[in-house]
């Protein structure tokens, strides 16, 4: 990657020979410098290398999804093979093995709506409480949550599995949904965001007008929290949609698999005795799995990026 020197080699300001009075010249220079520096082809090209690295496997995935099982093995990975089988592959992905892929897709949606949705609600409420109220035990709550973040999630997974197993929850959707409800990162982000976004005076004014605490929250504060909420929702969504370890431990019945677990099962099928390799379906299924998230990130870009920026103000 570009070293710091390459970053700065283009940086020396070109002298601006202009016959303008002193004060306006100062202003143009500053605008040129701070707000609108000169664009650099070299820097763009160097950063472009990282873009190529980031997109190459995705290009491979898109190209791969157009190939038949046979075509995958016989043609160059980064270019289209002779036959264009994308539509056939999509149709087969959804119908193969009695349409189990559709079932996995619906499971994933269920886990995301209840898990990530619930996690966002809890994080918004909790972050709001930490930002705007002084309550007994607040410092303890904070210390415990921050401390627990450092505990590896997988270290918790096995005891959680044993506990849930005794409660009869394993192999049910609840075993995936309940642990997904907690997002310490979401709580942290919401706490920082709420501290920034809600003027305490506004809350006081609403209370003075006789609004209840719930009404203050829903009508005065919640609208201000929208960008932060979208950010937390997107990140918890990605976490739940992509989660592999938790369902791997909790779910034995393929009917309750989420997409990542199902795709891995299809992939592993080739290695089992007598199993038919379905790599073309693994690839097409993978593409279908990532499209909704990429679409969500692209469509909501403006909201989540502003939410993230506000979240990093605190030093």
């Amino acid at each position: 990657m570009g070293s710091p020197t390459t970053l700065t080699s283009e940086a020396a300001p070109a002298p601006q020979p202009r016959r303008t009075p002193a004060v306006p010249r100062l202003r143009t220079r500053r605008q040129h410098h701070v707000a609108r520096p000169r664009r650099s082809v070299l820097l763009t090209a160097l950063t472009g290398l990282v873009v190529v690295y980031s997109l190459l496997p995705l290009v491979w995935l898109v190209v791969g999804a157009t190939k038949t099982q046979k075509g995958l093995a016989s043609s160059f990975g980064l270019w289209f093979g002779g036959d264009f089988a994308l539509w056939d592959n999509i149709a087969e992905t959804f119908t193969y093995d009695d349409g189990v892929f559709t079932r996995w897709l619906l499971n994933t949606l269920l886990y995301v709506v209840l898990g990530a949705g619930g996690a966002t609600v809890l994080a918004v409420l909790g972050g709001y409480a930490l930002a705007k109220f002084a309550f007994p035990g607040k410092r303890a709550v904070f210390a415990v949550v921050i401390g627990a973040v450092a505990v590896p999630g997988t270290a918790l997974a096995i005891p959680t599995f044993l506990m849930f197993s005794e409660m009869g929850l394993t192999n049910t959707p609840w075993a995936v949904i309940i642990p997904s409800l907690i997002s310490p990162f979401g709580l942290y982000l919401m706490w920082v965001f709420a501290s920034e976004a809600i003027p305490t005076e506004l809350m006081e004014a609403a209370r003075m007008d006789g609004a209840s605490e719930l009404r203050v929250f829903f009508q005065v504060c919640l609208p201000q929290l929208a960008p932060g909420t979208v950010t937390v929702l997107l990140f918890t969504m990605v976490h739940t949609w992509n989660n592999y370890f938790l369902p791997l431990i909790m779910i034995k019945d393929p009917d309750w698999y989420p997409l990542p677990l199902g795709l891995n099962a299809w992939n592993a099928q080739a290695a089992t005795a007598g199993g038919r390799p379905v790599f073309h379906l693994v690839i097409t299924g993978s593409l279908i799995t990532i499209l909704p998230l990429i679409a969500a990130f692209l469509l909501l870009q403006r909201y989540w990026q502003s939410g993230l920026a506000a979240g990093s103000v605190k030093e």
Partner: protein
Amino acid sequence: MAPVQSAAAARPLPVRKTRRSWTGWGFIGPFALVFTLVFLAPIAYSVHLSLFQDRLIGGTTFVGLDNYQRALQDREFWEGVGRVGLFLVVQVPVMLGIALLVALALDSGRLYGKSFFRIAIFLPYAVPAVVAALMWGFLYGTRFGLVGDIDDALNTTLPDPLSPGLVLASIGNIVTWEFAGYNMLILYSALRVIPASLYEAAEIDGAGQLRVITAIKLPAIRGALAIATIFSIIGSFQLFNEPSILRSLAPNAITTSYTPNLYTYALSFNGQQQNYAATVAIVMGLITMVVAYVVQLRGMRKAA
């Protein structure tokens, strides 16, 4: 951007008019309840488990710290710890280095097509670890994969990325690919909120770009950098998904105790040794916390 920033800077500090009451608990209560169920209770339960052993005769018996003693002498476990330690020392700096350079490049305002770059580099984060590992597994293939294609086309014999000597680096590449963009975005967001007045002051003082980066930008994003580092350390110690999925392609290179997490998984689900698995998980959690804490302290000392 500049006028907004200066307006914000000019605004007087908000007076904390928060009242101390139980109302806050009404809002944080639901979080605290579920948190207790899925974080605190399992931690307590695994400490409990780690003090017992399942024996053929006598059933479950209290054994004190025997499991811990076994873990401290367990070669398989420590080899796994060494592996993720090596992974951490190499992969985390490479990934954060890329993230930082890209964030600085984006923030410099000197790129063509900035918003495309930002989202394109971030996109891999939206790809599930399973899909990422499957994809890269295909790309790594020396027979039908991209590596094989290149060998065929150029008549070369590239080293096998899934061989025992290279597989850790190959896993590192997948993890870097997945999270460089995510970390870039965290750092970039932190860079965006630096007040423009600081740059103006630096310019008046005649500071060059390099000086602006070292004297203004890096100190300003220290907090974000520390958070990114700590999350990356925790992630390294938790390494599971990528090696677990690549294992089907490289069963000889990736053993069931390749990382401490693979080891705990194998112990409790294939070996039925839940008590010992809980012990290993606790020891690993302690190691993670100590390392994260030391890194955090070092970061703070530098700041002071």
